[in-house]
């Protein structure tokens, strides 16, 4: 009887390990696109805000002509936004149903709140917002919205890592704005990408419960 018991136990252990490794691999495959996207955004922030920091009359060091700095920044943002749209469209490919709808609404939340923020800022500029303040409020407002959307996404998918990233990005936006121009660009160029890269690594490794759908014991 005891040999039978230990056989059952070894078998159960093997099956449990198989189940866990399959869960991890499923999560990591479903989330790989998002991990890559975070790396793209980390690069866009690092290069884009780095260029602004190095821009003549914009940043703290004078390495790039003003126009070049803005073009580099703009190009980085455009590439990252296009990548985001592609990732959004391809995400959950092959899966249909309720969660697809949920994902679609969430995707639109990004577009709507970004365009809304941008229009609001244009309105402020029309009302006479000085350039120096615009340099503070533009990245600050967008980063705040990004942070809020990560909070919402984290809550929606019960994803603590994503939620944590939201908190960090909001903290970065606040810290950068308190630093004032031109140091805010440096804060965005360094702190934002570090946080995004950490989260990207965690997503791929599936170390933390990204979408813990089931309750541990009594269900």
């Amino acid at each position, binding site marked *: 009887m005891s040999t039978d018991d230990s056989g059952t*136990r070894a078998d159960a252990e093997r099956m449990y390990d198989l189940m866990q490794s399959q869960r991890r691999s499923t*999560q990591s*495959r479903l989330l790989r696109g998002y991990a890559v996207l975070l790396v793209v955004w980390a690069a866009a922030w690092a290069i884009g805000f780095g260029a602004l920091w190095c821009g003549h009359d914009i940043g703290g060091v004078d390495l790039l002509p003003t126009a070049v700095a803005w073009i580099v920044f703009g190009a980085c943002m455009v590439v990252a936004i296009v990548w985001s749209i592609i990732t959004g469209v391809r995400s959950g490919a092959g899966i249909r149903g309720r969660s697809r709808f949920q994902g679609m609404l969430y995707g639109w939340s990004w577009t709507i709140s970004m365009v809304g923020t941008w229009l609001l800022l244009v309105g402020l500029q029309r009302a006479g917002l000085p350039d120096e303040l615009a340099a503070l409020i533009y990245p600050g407002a967008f980063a705040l919205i990004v942070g809020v959307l990560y909070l919402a996404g984290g809550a929606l998918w019960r994803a603590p890592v994503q939620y944590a990233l939201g908190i960090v990005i909001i903290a970065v936006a606040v810290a950068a704005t308190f630093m004032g121009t031109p140091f805010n660009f440096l804060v965005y160029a360094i702190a934002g990408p570090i946080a995004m890269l950490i989260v990207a690594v965690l997503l791929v490794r599936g170390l933390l419960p990204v979408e813990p759908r089931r309750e541990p014991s009594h269900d």
Partner: protein
Amino acid sequence: MTELDPVIHAPARLRIMTTLDEALGDGDEIAFPALQKLLDMTPGNLTTHLAKLEAAGYVASTKTFTGRRPATLVTITPAGRAAFRAYRTQLLELLGGTR
């Protein structure tokens, strides 16, 4: 101690059930090729095991069209989810129930 559910207690089918439970929310369906990709299984192998799971009422599949191409959509049934959770609980009990 009751027997572990023999329908789930096979490596290939346990992987299928785990993946469906993990990837699909309630009311979601996954296309056959997408499921195959998540599992790294051959179409024939996957079809065989899905048939066994379907016979037990743990998964359901529907044939549909995406554009003009025929497509198979697979979903985990509420009974399937319940069976998977019961199986998981049983495994945990066998392992001491601490995890």
